[in-house]
């Protein structure tokens, strides 16, 4: 079966696109899927450090497009997961070095060799974003439960509809259950009400994400991280499994609840 090409975008910067791409890629590849992720953020390369592969880069996506190397030569194999590859962004070029038809051509060559192609989109709605969505079969829009991120997500969803890429599926990232409980953060339901699109994942705010990025080891590797669990669930949903959404209203897990009941906490 040819690959599913999935682009992760957001409008606003810093909401967790690169984090999502790295973690969904790790989760998919851990379950045995063949995955290649492409850093579409030309000039602001980041996916390589989040995946811990920055020391292995020789060629980048612009080298491929401009014919300085073959596609295979620019693909970096993950250290832990042999079925996971990265095509890094160019760091010293700008977004105009790549066009949407370049992207379509490049992805066409990958479709038959992989199960999933994940594309990390840059922020904004200009050239880099257009490049990233051009080859997409499916688009995931990342937002945070916060006014500016939701507003930008709505803009992006509108553009996706206009470009006939479907409305996209929503990842609500960095949800803080305590703030939601105190009515000081939009809940997942609020965000869904406002944006009126399909939900594919709710990822809690989790310090493990930062710790993982320090080490170049995405949290999807960490069986104890709640954000890691949320990303693993998104990967399952992308494969067509029905997985219930995490119950984030309950700040503790089963054990914490039990301990509270037993009066220990």
């Amino acid at each position: 079966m040819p690959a599913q090409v999935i682009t992760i975008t957001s409008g606003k910067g810093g909401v967790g696109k690169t984090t999502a791409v790295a973690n969904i890629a790790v989760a998919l590849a851990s379950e045995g899927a063949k995955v290649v992720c492409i850093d579409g953020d030309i000039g602001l390369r980041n996916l390589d450090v989040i995946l811990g592969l920055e020391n292995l880069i020789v060629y980048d996506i612009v080298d491929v497009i401009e014919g300085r190397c073959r596609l295979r030569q620019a693909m970096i194999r993950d250290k832990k997961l042999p079925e996971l590859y990265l095509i890094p962004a160019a760091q010293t070029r700008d977004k105009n070095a790549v066009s949407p038809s370049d992207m379509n051509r490049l992805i066409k060559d990958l479709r038959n060799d992989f199960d999933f192609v994940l594309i990390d989109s840059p922020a904004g709605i200009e050239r880099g974003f257009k490049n990233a969505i051009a080859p997409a079969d499916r688009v995931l829009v990342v937002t945070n439960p916060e006014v500016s991120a939701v507003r930008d997500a709505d803009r992006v969803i509108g553009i996706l509809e206009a470009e006939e890429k479907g409305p996209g599926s929503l990842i609500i990232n960095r949800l803080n259950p305590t703030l939601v409980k105190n009515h000081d953060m939009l809940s997942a339901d609020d965000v869904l009400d406002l944006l009126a699109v399909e939900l594919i994942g709710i990822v809690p705010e989790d310090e493990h994400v930062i710790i993982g990025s320090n080490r170049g080891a995405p949290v999807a590797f960490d069986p104890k991280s709640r954000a890691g669990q949320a990303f693993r669930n998104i990967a399952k949903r992308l494969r067509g499994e029905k997985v219930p959404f995490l119950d984030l209203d309950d700040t503790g897990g089963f054990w914490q609840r039990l301990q509270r009941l037993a009066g220990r906490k």
Partner: protein
Amino acid sequence: MGFFERLFGKKNSADSAKERLQLVLIHDRMDLTPAELDSLRDDLIATISRHVEIDAQSVQIGMEHDGRSQRLVADIPLKGASRRRAKRSK
């Protein structure tokens, strides 16, 4: 939310966020500035008035939405007493 905020009936911040976003998204999706909306309203009043007498002061234009699809809804009251057709003015 703190004690004083509750005491003075200040809305919690998530509710403010949601209400503000509802309005902002309506305008963003419509792709019309408030000034453009005003001018649309004036044009609409002028056009309709050429056919029937309306109560221009009470014309209401609003947005309704169902999921992501939006519709412009105009409420245009006709002049109560005189239901007859407006004189065609040139």
